[in-house]
């Protein structure tokens, strides 16, 4: 992988001057992922409705230096399927040179991916389009005002998972979308964060290298919704990983790889939760049991991933 210096010299696919909030993880996800695209490949980018889309395409301005299409909220994967199909059909009809290389990329928020767009994504992955789908997961419907999604962590406050006398934020655990997509048997699936640029760019490179579908789930903090400072985005990602809340892992041709957390970096879950206003209520003494439950969930998920790593050691690709 190229070093930081080299990467910083790559032409920006997403121009500065867009209207995302300061410290927004979404633009960091886009820039780091797009740094993984080989220089000789032209991309077309599609995006689901959400903060990223409404902040980068406000007519007559357009922050994208690459061809870009927005269609609606739940269908970025289907829309980009169509663009990819157009490329194939037009190449077959001789309308596009046969040697032209292109890649098709879709960005969707967690709402547009885990929830309303899951069917569209599942269909696109199953059909095997040459597409990299990137979920920038900020754990809620931020664009419409911080409503809960199935990516919202248990215990987090959201405007539709309120904190009150009878309820302490979201009651259900986060959906494990990355495993769901891995279960489609696509060649490459990975989970990363915008605070781990080396990890993310190298995973994006692998995703782009695949001839077929690939999926990246990228933790992309939202300072506004998480109630953190706009200078804390990268740091909070590191805590997410060091507390094992958000494991870094990948599934390459059926083989699971989990990035271990070094003993010296390992932190208690509270270190991830405490800086975020959305978890503030959990630190009341009467809510201590919720944090305990969350810790048990984190351990169970880690153990599950270790099990996948162990059992897939000698796996051959299910799609071969």
């Amino acid at each position: 992988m190229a070093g930081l210096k080299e990467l910083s010299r790559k032409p920006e696919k997403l121009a500065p001057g867009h209207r995302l909030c300061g410290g927004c993880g979404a633009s960091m996800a886009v820039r780091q992922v797009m740094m993984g695209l080989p220089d000789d490949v032209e991309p077309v980018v599609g995006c689901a409705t959400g903060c990223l889309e409404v902040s980068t395409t406000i007519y007559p301005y357009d922050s994208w230096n690459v061809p870009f299409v927005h269609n609606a909220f739940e269908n970025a994967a289907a829309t980009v399927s169509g663009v990819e199909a157009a490329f194939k059909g037009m190449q077959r009809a001789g309308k596009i040179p046969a040697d032209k290389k292109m890649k098709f990329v879709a960005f969707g928020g967690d709402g547009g991916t885990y929830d309303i767009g899951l069917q569209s994504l599942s269909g696109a992955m199953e059909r095997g389009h040459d597409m990299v789908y990137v979920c920038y997961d900020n754990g809620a419907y931020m664009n419409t005002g911080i409503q809960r999604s199935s990516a919202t962590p248990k215990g987090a406050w959201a405007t539709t998972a309120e904190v009150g006398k009878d309820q302490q934020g979201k009651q259900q655990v986060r959906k494990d979308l990355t495993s769901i997509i891995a279960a489609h048997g696509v060649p490459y699936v990975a989970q990363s964060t915008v605070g781990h640029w080396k990890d993310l760019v190298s995973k994006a490179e692998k995703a782009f290298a695949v001839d077929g579908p690939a999926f990246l789930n990228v933790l992309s903090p939202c300072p506004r919704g998480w109630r953190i400072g706009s200078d804390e985005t990268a740091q909070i990602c590191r805590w997410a990983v060091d507390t094992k809340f958000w494991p870094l892992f990948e599934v390459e041709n059926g083989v699971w790889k989990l990035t271990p957390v070094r003993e010296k970096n390992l932190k208690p879950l509270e270190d991830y939760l405490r800086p975020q206003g959305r978890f503030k209520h959990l630190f009341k003494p009467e809510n201590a049991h919720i944090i305990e439950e969350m810790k048990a969930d984190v351990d169970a998920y880690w153990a599950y991933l270790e099990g996948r790593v162990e059992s897939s050691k000698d796996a051959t690709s299910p799609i071969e």
Partner: protein
Amino acid sequence: MTATKPFSATGNQMIAEAMRQADPDVMAAYPITPQTTIVENYAKFVANGAVTTEFVTVESEHSAMSACVGASAAGARVATATASQGLALMWEELFIAAGMRLPIVMANANRALSAPINIHGDHSDVMGARDTGWILLFAETAQEAYDNTVISFPIAEDPDVQLPVMTTLDGFITSHAMERCVMEDDETVRSFVGDYAPANGLLTSPTPLGAGMFANGDSYMKSRYMLRHAIQDSLPVIERVGKAWADTCGRPFDVVDAWECDDAELIVVVLGSAAGNVRHIARELRAAGKKVGVVRPRVYRPFPVKQIAEACKGAKAIAIMDRADSLGGQYGPLAVDVLGALASAGQSAPFHNYIYGLGGNDLTNDLVHKVFDDLEKLADGSLGTGGTSYLGMQEAEGAQNIWLG
């Protein structure tokens, strides 16, 4: 021009053939009765290498239209087909396809909407698309379904139009019944539809193109205003392309088929396959010396206001037959359009609106006779103007609950 010898085919087969001849770059589709045989036929063309089309077998109609939007924005020629619940599921995407000015061609086998679930023909589905910005064509026969589909591509893709076109045929009645048809040869159709190579596609633009932008306030309203003009101004293009095809194939094309309207006093306005049933009785009545006429819009959006008013100008009474209802409104959708057309021309005549044939309910000769009988009463004043009734279901009028009797 070379045409095949006449052969028997269903409307769906004829649409599949027209699409094969236009050879779109992308077809993204999903099965639903009574459209399914269009995509099944197309799948055979794909399997046999008869087309260069990339065939995307999506997991829903919403994704079908979403993929069509992506493909069309990319600069591809795009086609699909659907019906009923599938068209309803696409509803959000219909507006987007038109708003983004994407020349997608879609066949719709017109069918009832649930509930209760019913697979048979009526216009409830397509009427839900009438305000979306799509050009809507109604075929009366399988032959016309073919002709309408052929002309859909050059109409949609005309640089002055750039709008999606829905080429519709009535579920089962036209989609599945065998009729005597002919087809022009592949070369004739290919040269008629031409190549589609827009300079403003995601894959064809020399500079990076942004499609599907976010537009606030003034720019949103401006784009809707431009859309209104685009669809209104498409009527002369539809007429020009339709006439050019008529010259090529020798079958007539009129945006409004006005049968015996020059001196007609009692006029029925009706869409799609039912026009044949109505003309069948009208012919008998003409033979008996009655001045009856039948008006059938072949183009429903843009609504051919002037042509409708012109066709109805001698009317002493008008029956407007709707194969869909506008629940909670006073009249069915076709009636509202026809009345608007007459009003804008300063014309008026006593009229009655019939809702008929829902869920494939038969339009029998007796029912058509009833409509003409009513027209005479409307004309002589013994039946008041402005009523609506469910044809053949008088007991439903004013009844509290037809299920409980």
